[in-house]
């Protein structure tokens, strides 16, 4: 008897397990990046928010300039600037509640600072001082993550843990366009969607991963189109439009908090400065390209809107500038001292208790330092 005879005649039907699990349509991003500034929707934006964003952006730009200057003075080992990307950095910070967590990439010190972290603490790593200059739990800011995309699963795990514990905490994880190519990006988004974890992924597509342009990084219609493959919504936003980024992030954060699961947001922006102070961007891109982006500057966009609506006058601009200068002066001054590091700290935090092996090494270094001291 053949298989068919065994089971009797039947009309072949679709595979029994087949029922589409979610409707893909609402998960796809719009064809155009979401914008508010320069559109009719701008008129509805809250003046208070506009002013707040403006002040923060001006301060953020000044912060970038100051940090870059500090590398030239040898006060920072290296600085990856976010000039041109301030709208993303600031909106990321402002979209969160105090109890929420921020997972910055190595570039995102500005987001941490905008969240209220002391810039000197934020820059500790880049100064060549200890790896993390602040208590992540106190500020709910994870350590800056240098290995790209590795912080994304951390954000998912933390958000998941919070939900298990019954806390309505959201995690916002930041990553670059290049970082989306890493396996950890994929695994994090998948875990987040399967667990419906309250996490928001913000990809700053600034056009480059060091020297590699987006076209060599991905062939996707947009990075936001990756979302549907995990079963989460993908959103595309003009990353230089602070109001739009803030709105999209705030929506995603609320949705996550309400149990709606994760969101992937791609913010289209541009890295105006070189990759870091050590990089020479002229090797891989034309100045003309940078110029086209200066015309789409996040601060200029906001200023335009504020001015049109009569919300910003010269005094207002001056006030923002003064506040930024004060921050810069304070940062400059405090970074101008040599931090005092205790070499014995090398052994103190490898484990809760140093192993016997580390104790021996500790004693060796102690003796060496003492001998050095004697010789002076």
């Amino acid at each position, binding site marked *: 008897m053949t298989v068919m005879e065994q089971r009797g005649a039947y009309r072949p039907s679709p595979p029994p397990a087949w029922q589409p699990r979610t409707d893909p349509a609402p998960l796809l991003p719009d064809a155009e990046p979401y914008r508010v500034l320069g559109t009719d929707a701008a008129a509805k934006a809250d003046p208070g928010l506009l002013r707040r964003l403006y002040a923060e952006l001006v301060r953020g730009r000044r912060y970038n300039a100051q940090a870059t200057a500090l590398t030239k003075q040898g006060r920072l080992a290296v600085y990856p600037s976010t000039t041109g990307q301030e709208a993303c950095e600031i909106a990321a910070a402002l979209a969160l509640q105090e109890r929420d967590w921020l997972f910055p990439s190595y570039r995102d010190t500005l987001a941490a600072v905008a969240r209220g972290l002391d810039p000197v603490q934020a820059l500790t790593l880049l100064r060549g001082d200890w790896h993390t200059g602040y208590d*992540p739990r106190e500020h709910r800011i994870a350590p800056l993550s240098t290995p790209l995309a590795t912080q994304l699963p951390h954000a998912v795990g933390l958000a998941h843990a919070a939900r298990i514990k019954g806390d309505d905490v959201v995690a916002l994880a930041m990553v670059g366009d290049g970082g989306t190519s890493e396996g950890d990006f994929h695994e994090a988004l998948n*875990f987040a969607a399967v667990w419906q974890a309250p996490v928001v992924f913000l990809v700053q597509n600034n056009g480059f991963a060091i020297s590699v342009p987006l076209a060599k990084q991905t062939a996707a219609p947009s990075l936001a189109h990756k979302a549907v493959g995990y079963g989460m919504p993908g959103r595309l936003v003009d990353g230089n439009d602070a109001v739009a980024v803030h709105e999209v992030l705030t929506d995603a954060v609320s949705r996550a908090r309400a149990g709606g699961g994760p969101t992937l947001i791609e913010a289209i922006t541009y890295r105006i400065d070189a990759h870091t102070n050590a990089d020479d961007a002229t090797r891989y891109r034309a100045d003309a390209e940078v110029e086209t982006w200066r015309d789409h500057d996040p601060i200029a966009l906001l200023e335009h809107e504020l001015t049109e609506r009569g919300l910003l006058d010269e005094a207002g601009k001056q006030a923002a500038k003064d506040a930024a200068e004060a921050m810069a002066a304070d940062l400059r001054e405090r970074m101008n001292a040599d931090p005092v590091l205790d070499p014995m700290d090398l052994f103190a935090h490898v484990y809760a208790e140093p192993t016997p*092996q580390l104790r021996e090494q500790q004693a060796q270094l102690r003796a060496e330092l003492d001998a050095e001291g004697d010789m002076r």
Partner: protein
Amino acid sequence: MTTVAVKPATMAQALTRALRDAMADDPSVHVMGEDVGTLGGVFRVTDGLAKEFGEDRCTDTPLAEAGILGTAVGMAMYGLRPVVEMQFDAFAYPAFEQLISHVSRMRNRTRGAMPLPITIRVPYGGGIGGVEHHSDSSEAYYMATPGLHVVTPATVADAYGLLRAAIASDDPVVFLEPKRLYWSKDNWNPDAPASVEPIGRAVVRRPGRSATLITYGPSVPVCLEAAEAAREEGWDLEVVDLRSLVPFDDETVCASVRRTGRAVVVHESGGFGGPGGEIAARVTERCFHYLEAPVLRVAGFDIPYPPPMLERHHLPGVDRILDAVGRLQWEAES
């Protein structure tokens, strides 16, 4: 006092009980990995936990080891105490970056503000007829990574005691489970109160005077067997079970070697760049003038783990151990 007949438990059962007791004692303990929930793990070590504690406490994750360990990091950052299962030794490799760049360093990176109490259970080693990628001895990688504890039991009682200690530890612990001992039994009573073993202490499994066999995990029973066989040759071998590779118990090991004057390190892992080099070197540094002969090593060959039909040629067995003992320059004695 009446003695009740104890039905012997396997190492796998002791591990299951350790997980269950830890989960019952501490609601922050979460078990996660591939197939650990409904199925109870491919070795059944997590059997029953999802049912007893719910799927949030014992979770079948998507199939992605970096994701498993990476999300465990985040969970630990929020105060949970994840116990992660890697299905087999070689399938822990995708999680290597998370392990090295984050798990082992987060406490240090944050000056102690953010410890990661994560236990990573890794069934390891060969001798079970497993096909490629199912029999690796990967301990050398973990030993060379500061910030990790590396622990491996050789007895049923230690499986319980050390796993409890690993889960209780505020540091990440790579907990290596010798696959071929999962079904080994001894007179450990699964129902009696059981003790937690401190991490970092080696133990003398068999006292002896002629030479010391320094070993751990799957090679412990082999060394004990070798020690028995050695009696015929007139050698009284001491067997030290390290139990913890990191931290390393120099005291117990060196006390034994100073007593016997001779030592052989035995492990399954490849010899070159394997744990034995470190062990031999540190024993020699500390006991040079007590040594009658160089510390020798009996290890797996420096080859990819062989197919099942050839693994017996690769694994250090009694003969190879006795052979090494025989090369400990006994002539000098007489």
